């Protein structure tokens, strides 16, 4: 019945996992929207002086989207058995992911200094929890990618054996695709 198995177990498992991840974010985004729409003035007056760093985060968004493209290039490289290029693109993707986290982290530090903390009402609370939840996912994806890079360096992937790259790529692209939604909702609207 191989013909009725268009997806390997591993790929299918990751796709199913994404269903659960989506519902986790549905819960958190739902909470965000309840707060956002329940308050006519956003940010609330108590935080009127807080400006979220829209511009830098916008650039950061671009970084993450590029990392999605490099991940795609890595996948195409391994499909064409270009093992060396696979390694380069994977590492490039990982570095972009790390850069995203570093920039976001430094922004957070500035925001905390400006007085926006987890305790500063629902505005600060939901900001850090929702964006932080995504950051944890990026971190998880980077760690996963590091393992995949290790395997790529050890030469474990070829044009016919690359499920390990594919599953990681699916997860990576998911985490990347999620970000613009959060960016628009939390930073822009």
């Amino acid at each position, binding site marked *: *019945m*191989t013909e009725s198995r268009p997806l390997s177990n591993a790929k*299918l498992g990751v796709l199913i996992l994404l269903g*659960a991840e989506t*519902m986790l974010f549905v819960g958190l985004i739902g909470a965000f929207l309840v707060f956002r729409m329940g308050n006519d003035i956003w940010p609330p007056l108590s935080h009127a002086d807080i400006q979220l760093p829209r511009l830098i985060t916008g650039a950061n968004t671009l970084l993450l989207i590029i990392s999605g493209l490099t991940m795609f290039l890595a996948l195409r490289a391994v499909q064409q058995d270009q093992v060396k290029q696979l390694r380069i693109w994977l590492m490039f993707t990982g570095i972009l992911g790390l850069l995203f986290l570093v920039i976001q982290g430094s922004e957070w530090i500035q925001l905390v200094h400006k007085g926006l903390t987890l305790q500063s009402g629902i505005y600060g609370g939901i900001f850090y*929890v929702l964006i932080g939840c995504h950051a944890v996912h990026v971190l998880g994806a980077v760690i996963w990618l590091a393992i995949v890079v290790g395997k790529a360096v050890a030469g474990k992937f070829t044009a016919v*054996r690359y499920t390990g790259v594919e599953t990681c790529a699916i997860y990576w692209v998911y985490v990347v695709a999620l970000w613009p939604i959060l960016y628009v909702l939390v930073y822009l609207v």
Partner: protein
Amino acid sequence: MQDNENMSHEHEHDDDEHHDHAHDDNDTIEHTHEHDDDEHHAHAHHEESFIRKYIFSLDHKMIGKQFLIYGLIMLFVGGGLALLFRWQLAYPERPLPIIGASEKYMEDGEVVTGADKMWERIYDSDKEEWLEAHMPNGVVEPAIYNMLFTMHATIMVFFVVVPILVGAFGNFLIPLMIGTRDMAFPILNMLSFWLAVLAAVIMAAGFIVPGGHASAGWTGYAPLSVDPQWTGVGWGLNLWAISLLIQGFSSLVGSINYITTVINMRAPGMTWLRLPLVIWSLFIVAILLLLAFPVLSSALALLIFDRLAGTTFFTSTAEGGGDPLLWQHLFWFFGHPEVYILILPGMGIASELVAVFSRKPIFGYRSMVYAMIAIAFLGWVVWGHHMFQSGMRPGMGAFFMTTTMLIAVPSAIKTFNWLGTMFRGSIRFTTPMLHAIAFVSMFVIGGLSGIYMANTPVDIYIHDTYYIVAHIHYVVFGGSLFAIFGGIIFWFPKMYGRYMNDMLSKIHFWLTFIAFNCTFFPMHILGVGGHRRRISNPMAEAIDVVTQEQLFADMNIFITMSAFTLGFVQLILVFNFVWSIYRGKVAEKNPWNVNTLEWEAPTPVPHGNFAQIPTVYRGPYEYSVPGEESDFIPQAQPEHAPASAGD
């Protein structure tokens, strides 16, 4: 897309990567062993170590049994908690029997009984003992009453019914009934069980932390659950939330496994519409668990932040703050699909039992499947019916009322299909069949009372009364637990190679059935009479009025006696279960003459399940086919007569 050769290489790679037993069973059968990875060979041909076989097992059957034992142990913990608060409801402020102090000791400190001696020792000791703080003299205090009913429900829902129905039956049945050697990800499967154990340990730890265990109800409504000053509970509630988060991970891992296995690893010829209904139900439930639990996880995470990090998601503060109703929305958006997670596998098990013991094809196989899908779908759009009293626009109330009542349609389809299956069948009243019939009839009572409370105007009256308690217990005890008991007795011969003792099973069934109805039916009357739920002392004095609760003292005593009977009767089941594992009558391969694939496997089922992966030629319910010699035709039996229409 890659070509076929490409694909099979990939699979080998998977196996290698994830120590995965997901061999290409579906390739030509003769070559199965050549496709197996080394690890599987080690399992199949060498004696496994004790730890590998019984503790950190990768075998789906052993993990299923582990979940079963886990669930049964937790059933007694959860039931025991219920008996403690039932005592308080019948005999408020009186010490518990056996462990409570005697009246004489409470009045003038004279030691009369052994229990008195125990209390004397506890009071004399310098350190604050748990019992002293929680139940002085063995009397259930109001705060502890809250803790008891909270933990009773939490344990029954998350640690008994789901682990047994989904964990035990899902693990044991899915690979056997779809005809494969194991789950898609055996290591994840083991992880799922041990995460559940970790969650249970953390949940148990809540009982011994200062301040006691969670006592905001199993629904953990905010803001009650948010601030320790309102419940007096500190770390107990944190541990409650953390434990449920971990249980969520366990369910997540389990459901990824189930869904992948059912989609990818069915035996040749096992098409979707040849799947046994219990597998359909477990598949649908896995999807529900996968999508519902993360929503609870998000709510629990926010709750933990509120409790530990000083956020205000679920409380109002002077400068605006959060929204207590948000918790209810998130909780019930998870909670209502959860209710169907508790009942759908029971429906699946009942479908198997009813068809097998009526010796007839299941009536309306396709409609059964579609009805389950419809119930699972509708389960997502009804959560508001738990919140009619929380304040809701009338338009929204009408919406939730309508969607809730719509669920009666697929439920009724299923009920009439079970009746249609039994109608004019050659019914065999074996003990599993008795349980299945009990399931159907009790589910009808529970389902019908559900329609009443779906009505917003009616619900305003019966909300938070014992009517709700009666309803939930008719569905979850009368439904799920009877299905569980029936399923255990039915599949016991395949699990352990022996029958359970039939006389004991029958005694257990009838006593349970009677005690169950005596316990929970009167609660309908209490509820309509206005007896509130979650009242620790129904006899509490009120100024100048007789409360509704006081009128029901006799009925409360009757319910409590029935509940104790119900609890103690379950010991028969445990004795029978343990005794039969070692001393039961040895069972043959297919003792009930069933069609489905699990009975094709040798008994006891070896690691890897089947000597050869069976090929499926027909649907699962071809019983009493006209013109056939035998009244059952196993799914793996090749066609010999003109093709029958079963699908």
